[in-house]
């Protein structure tokens, strides 16, 4: 099996402001992200040979992208893979280039969630009989992992609060984030409980946003810019839906994370991720998800996340900065956009363009999504980009 490493380059990216974009429709968000990416790459829309659109539920078919951008009659594929939708649109676009079929492609992900009201993720049918999933919420499903993790490893809500505090701090330094406010551990602990033990600050908001990447063959990248970023590895793993069925599933790790990251580390040749990765954008839909992901990705040993959190290992100043832009906690989670927004952070960090949150001389940035619900089984999506 041939590896994807160093075959595809990112030569332009765009990302909208994430937030309650009441005055903008989905097509506005698409135009905003795409044209920033076109401008960044120094290309015209007509230069794009094929495109991949990532959206969970805000548009249907390739026309959802072709229509707002007037891309003409080029191949456009709509991708959906749960909360990893944006990341998987990027992955498929990479394959389009790596296969030699296209030289210049667009991957764009977006979601216009704020048109749907507070509590409803409409029309996303998981395929699981609704009777068997009755009584669930997203927060509640992930809370099942938090209760079990607390029980198994003897930690409490304060550890989760530290993750929220860290991400809020980073979000203040991210101009495009939705939330720009420092919070304290006390605020996090005293906030209303949404699904025990997860409180308001353990949960990411619902947000509108779009992000885009222009990709080309690595050997052509220099003709677009000198500071291009290379795709190093990509992995996806879909859980076979057995968490709710098999009694040997422990609710304190995700096998799909472990499997997806193994694919990626093998492609890139990473042995000690904590030392070799410069930054990681991980899926913090809920603080507990970020915590468990540290362990699944090998950023710390199993069951020892608390020690690393207490030591500040994942802060901007730490040895392994995680969610340097504020994560889903501050950007919210428009599912189609999130994965590309994460890659956008690595793209900026690697080129020294991350402003007040710039890390020192980063080499490799990992981006990670986990999509779906723990009880139904999630899909983990991971990409590593580097210089």
């Amino acid at each position: 099996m041939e590896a994807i490493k160093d075959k595809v380059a990112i030569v332009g990216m765009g990302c909208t402001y994430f937030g309650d974009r009441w005055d903008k429709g989905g097509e506005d968000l698409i135009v905003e992200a795409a044209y920033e990416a076109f401008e960044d790459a120094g290309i015209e829309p007509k230069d794009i040979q094929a495109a991949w659109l990532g959206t969970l539920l805000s548009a249907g078919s390739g026309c959802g992208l072709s229509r707002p951008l007037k891309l003409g009659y080029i191949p456009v594929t709509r991708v959906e893979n749960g909360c990893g939708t944006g990341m998987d649109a990027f992955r498929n676009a990479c394959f389009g280039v790596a296969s030699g079929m296209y030289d210049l492609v667009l991957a764009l992900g977006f979601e216009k969630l704020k048109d749907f009201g507070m509590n409803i993720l409409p029309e996303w049918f998981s395929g699981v009989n609704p009777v068997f999933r009755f009584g669930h919420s997203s927060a509640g499903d992930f809370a099942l992992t938090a209760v079990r993790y607390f029980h198994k490893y003897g930690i409490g809500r304060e550890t989760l609060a530290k993750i929220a505090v860290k991400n809020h701090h980073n979000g203040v330094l991210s101009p495009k984030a939705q939330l720009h406010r420092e919070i304290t551990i006390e605020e996090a602990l005293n906030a209303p409980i949404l699904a025990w033990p997860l409180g308001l600050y353990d949960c990411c908001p619902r947000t509108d946003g779009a992000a885009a990447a222009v990709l080309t063959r690595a050997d052509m990248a220099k003709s677009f810019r000198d500071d291009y970023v290379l795709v190093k590895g990509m992995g996806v793993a879909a859980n076979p839906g057995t968490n709710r069925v098999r009694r040997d599933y422990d609710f304190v790790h995700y096998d799909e994370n472990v499997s997806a990251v193994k694919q990626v580390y093998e492609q890139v040749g990473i042995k000690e991720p904590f030392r070799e990765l410069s930054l990681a954008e991980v899926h913090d839909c809920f603080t507990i998800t970020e915590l468990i992901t540290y362990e699944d990705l090998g950023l710390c040993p199993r069951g020892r996340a608390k020690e690393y959190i207490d030591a500040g290992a994942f802060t901007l100043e730490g040895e392994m900065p995680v969610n340097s832009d504020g994560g889903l906690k501050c950007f919210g989670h428009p599912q189609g956009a999130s994965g590309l927004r994460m890659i956008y952070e690595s793209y900026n960090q690697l080129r020294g363009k991350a402003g007040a949150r710039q890390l020192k001389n980063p080499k490799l940035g990992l981006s990670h999504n986990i999509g779906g619900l723990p009880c139904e089984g999630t899909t983990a999506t991971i990409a590593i980009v580097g210089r």
Partner: protein
Amino acid sequence: MVGIVSYGAHIPFYRLSRDEIAKAMGRPSMGGEKAVASYDEDSMTMAVSAARECVKGIDKEKIDALFFASTTPPYREKQCASVVAMAVDLRADVSVADFANSLRAGTNALRAAIDAVNSKSARLVLVTATDCRLGGAGSELEQIFGAGAAAILVGSEDVAAEIEGSFTYSDEFMDQWRMEEDSIVRSWETRFVRQEGYTRIMQEGVSQLMNKYGLKPEDFTKVALYGSDPRGHRDLVRLLGFDPKTQVQDPLFDGVGNTGCAFAPMIFVAALEASKAGDRILLANYGDGCDVFSFKVSDGISKIRDRRAINYYLTQKAMLPNYAAYQRIRHLITSEVTPHPKDDMFVPVLWRSRAEILSLHGSKCRNCGELQFPKQRICAYCGSKDNFEDVGFSDKKGSVFTYTIDSMAPSVNPPTVRCVVDFEGGGRMVCVMADCEPDKVAIDMPVEMIFRKLLDVENAGLHSYFWKCKPSI
């Protein structure tokens, strides 16, 4: 010898003090408390609960008929007995029937069951009587009515109480009724109902039974009498010449309330629970006439002492804090519930998965032996394809592997306690926990399964039922 082979009952977990009703309505309180069906209970689920208890340890293959009796069936048109039969997991060729519209529906069904066994058209007949009636806000009936169910298994072998004789008659009388569109029970003036209805008719029926079989009031160890209200019941006991201190089975007004067509059967079950071999028990039920039965308790009673019935459920309770909490769980005020559109129940889906949804069947892999819920095509453990046998999970004990107390999940009674349950002997399922105090939920807590209602599906206009777990006590 035909008679009662087993019994069961159900009283909802929640109780409301009548003082709270009185306070909210600015009316005098009758005192005591009433049982209130939870937001996820109705006549169907209560019947299932009582019926499952009743058939504990019984060979269900021998149950040839199931009757469902209620004045408050969840559907105006649609059989309920067929749902109860699925939930109790009876044979597919069981004979089912609904009895409705009268306070005597439960004893009408009991008579039919006795006739069926007597005529040898059925070996065992499972009778369920269940009601949760609504009295108008501020009315006496609001305070009097409670919710509950009884189940009685009638057969001719291993009988715990033999039917000695019965008497029935029809006496057309407008005392309580509901028109086609009424949600609350209408009633004519209390004194008229008590004097010309309840007292006259019951006195007539019980006297006629005693005359028919040459029995005197002192021949009965216990009498289980329907009561329209506490005073009517007291007066009737006196007029019939029974000793209120020794002979009368407590009519449950204080702790449960009048449970409609389930009321007399529940009082009767309580009498059976307290009985010993040789006792004679009178059961008298009222409604557009009356049904009166005399039973002689036999040695078999000692074999069914483990049934959870009235005594057990009287101790299993949580008080609703106030009238508003009652209104909320009985859907009497409009709660803000945002259903997930993706959770819409589609009839073909419910039908296709009926064995899992109504009978809680899962599968056991014939290759690796692992139990799995819901049913799988490909084994989640060993990958074998279509190599399973059906396994029922509803009677299995389980324990909580992990849980959440969720205020985000749509419910008229948040928070939703949802948990991962691991079953003894294998198998796991994710489900909601009913009848619990959320702050007492813990990992490893023992649970058992209970049949409950999910959210009504507004657009679809149907009820959907499924299994939840509840603390095992």
